């Protein structure tokens, strides 16, 4: 379910970082693009495509740490910052620029993607 996040030209506000427990990831749906957003214990935030390039495992359900994510289905590992495959030859993950606002809101940029008008209202 998507309600209406205010957005600048390219940046979406996904709401407070506390929606994601420390050290875990959660999946957000941006229009028809599912995105996994991760909150590292050291405060860093990452965003990647939601599904593993190997067999479409749900990456937000994986174990993360030291800037890496392990897919829960077959333990394929990727670099969270670059999306690069680590120790295997699956395709790299798409990554998205993400940061925290001064109030601790997740700010995500998805080039050319908007919540579709059917599911979310544009401000």
């Amino acid at each position: 379910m998507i309600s209406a996040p205010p957005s600048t030209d390219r940046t979406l506000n996904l709401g407070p970082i506390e929606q994601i427990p420390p050290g875990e990831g959660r999946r957000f749906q941006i229009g028809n693009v599912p995105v996994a957003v991760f909150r590292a214990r050291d405060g860093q935030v990452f965003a990647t495509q939601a599904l593993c390039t190997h067999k479409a495992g749900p990456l937000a359900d994986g174990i993360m740490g030291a800037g890496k994510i392990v897919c829960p289905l077959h333990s394929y590992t990727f670099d969270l910052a670059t999306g690069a495959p680590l120790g295997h030859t699956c395709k790299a993950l798409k990554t998205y620029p993400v940061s925290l606002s001064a109030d601790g809101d997740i700010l995500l940029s998805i080039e050319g993607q908007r919540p579709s008008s059917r599911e979310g209202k544009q401000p």
Partner: protein
Amino acid sequence: MITKQQLVVVGNGMAGARFVEDVLARGGRDRFSITMFGEEPYGNYNRILLSSVMAGSHDPKDIFLNSLGWYEENGVKLHAGVRVGWIDRLSKKVYAPGGVTAAYDKLVIATGSSAFVPPMGGLYDQSGEFKPGVFAFRTLDDCDRMIKYAGKARRAAVIGGGLLGLEAARGLLNRGLEVHVVHLMSYLMEAQLDALAGGMLHRLLEKMGVRILLEKFTTAVLGDDAVTGLAFKDGSKLDCDMVVISAGIRANVDLAKQSGLTVERGIVVHDDLSCRNDTNVYAIGECAQHRGQVYGLVAPIWEQARVLADVLTGGNKRALYTGSRVSTKLKVMGIELAVMGDKDPKREDDEVVTYVEPSRGVYKKLIVREGRLAGAILLGDGLAAPRLLQVFDREDPMLDDRSELLFPMSGEAKTPSVAEIPDTAQICNCNGVSKGKIVAAVKAGCRTVKAVCDATRAGTGCGSCKPQVQAVVAFACDGAVEEDPAAHYYVPGVALTKPALIKAVREQDLRSVSAVFKGLAGGREDLGSKVGLASLLKTVWGKEYEDERDARFINDRVHANIQKDGTFSVIPRIYGGVTSPEQLRRIADVAEKYNARMVKITGGQRIDLLGIPKEKLPDVWNDLGMPSGHAYTKAFRTCKTCVGTDFCRYGVGDSTGLGIKIEKRFQGIESPHKMKLATAGCPRNCSEATTKDIGAVAIEGGKWEVYIGGAAGSRVRKGDVLCIVDSQDDVLKCMGRFMQYYRENGKYLERTYDFVERTGIDALRRLLVDDADGICARLDADIQAAVDAYDDPWTESRKPVHPNQFAGTVAVAGR
């Protein structure tokens, strides 16, 4: 800026070059300027493979480990083809011909060894060189010259029937020569084999066409300008036009001796590998003598190189070399041979186990001392070797049934040895990794089994192929596998064994996974270690554990088993597999209401609802009104039962009642890996209790046999009887005791069947039945505490630990 110390290494063979690699790997380039001297005009090559070059199976260029360019790239100054003439220990300088000098702060001598040439007449020509046709087999140049000469020779004599001699004989035979092996002793390879094994090897080699002369003392090489034959002490002669001397090796210690270092058979070194009378000078490899031993095999030498690199780079200042247990796998002319430790009994109470099959040339011999393997000879059977080597290296307790070690594949189809199978053969059936891929990884530089597994993913699925992966790795690096120290760590990211880790966790009061990373891993988070640490901390601290949910696998965050499409499976607990029409109706209703895509009876006698989305899990649990079946976690899973005494005509014990009690008591008890249990009401064993992690089988007289360490998964193993008890209460008691001991001592993801084998059933009986160490009362109390601490995780449906604990997709909060 710190000025670099001068590190000089004399010797560029397998010890010296390996040591420099290890120093570089520890960042030694920042601390040392490294200078090396090598007598041969090359980079560094794998001397073990010389015999393969001789045999024509390897090209000389394939055996190089480091080319000359490698030294340059790594800032190592190599004087190739330069023999050091003198060490001045007072001014700390080494001198070589041509005015080459090098000052050192630390000096490492790795001059290796050279062929021992027994005294005999007619060896040399007038210039003092070997007469044409006479060779010692030691260097690449020797090999090259021998190959050239063999091209025009017809009949060769190899002096020395030890390992090297037989390798040389194989090479010459491959090159079409008639080969005679001349041996001084009464049987071949007497250093490694007993007379029986030596005799069998003799016959196998003769079948291949090698002629063997025993108890022959060579007195002279015949021929004026070139070799024409050999003369022996007994007056007999052998016509031949080529002679290869491989009668053993002698440590190259002249340089050390002239420089005033203490030398016996080798250069005498302390445990930190420094020389006895000069702590700035070190010696490693075949020239070093440690605790009276001079090693000639590669594994101990590489261990010395690693220890010395640790000592000098400060990576581990207290690193010590404490000697090696010598074992080796050899291939003598295609005949599989593994030897380790003692070849004959040494003490009166040593137990000797032998199996001999002369027609196939199979001989197996074990020397057992104080319940451990003190030595073994394995001829003609490569399959049993990896297990035996492991048991020997780790000094594991022996199985009571020795035959299980001698015949590891009995009952299963015989698999061919790894050398014989084609490169395309699939070794890892989970990830589809072929033998060729593993060999390629080794060639690309992976030297430990772990490195190979990481690089290829072999063995990372169910893990049952690990022994074969290990065998292929050993084959690919010709027996010179390195052991990964991390193999003994509980988790890869914290350099401690399980007992040491538990001790540190208690001492430093570390109650969360991130506290462990902070306290014991220099603050470095390691994602491969999180789940294992969480399991261990839960066992150590119980309710005092600070539960960080991100250290749990997804299954344990949402208490259900993730499926390939990202949905989950829900298995409620059905105690002892006994259900009711009312319960079945409720399950059916839930399955319909939530569109379970499959309803499945599990192997553990329960009902599985598959295809449930994550966000529906709490509702499904609430509607079921049944406790969690823990089918998703490393914990007590289920106790399968047969119908026991209530209905069965044969039952002698109430297996159903006992199974229900077991499930009620141990539900949710976490452990290093899952525990599947069963109870059987009679020895017909319909519930298959003897192949469960823990099982109980009722026997006549109101008694129960308690089995541990059974398996019927990727491995099949019959459990061992831990004890026979008189009552259901006693069954519960000793099961709980074993569970707690396994919880405390099992490695993460080590199933009970591996744990029981590693610990030994005898040792477990002493500890858990006889209470030899007086730990039983504590184990009983600790498992009771774990039982008391049990909470049904499915109650989190009503009080989630985080508002988004079960969120499939987070709704974007508008503002």
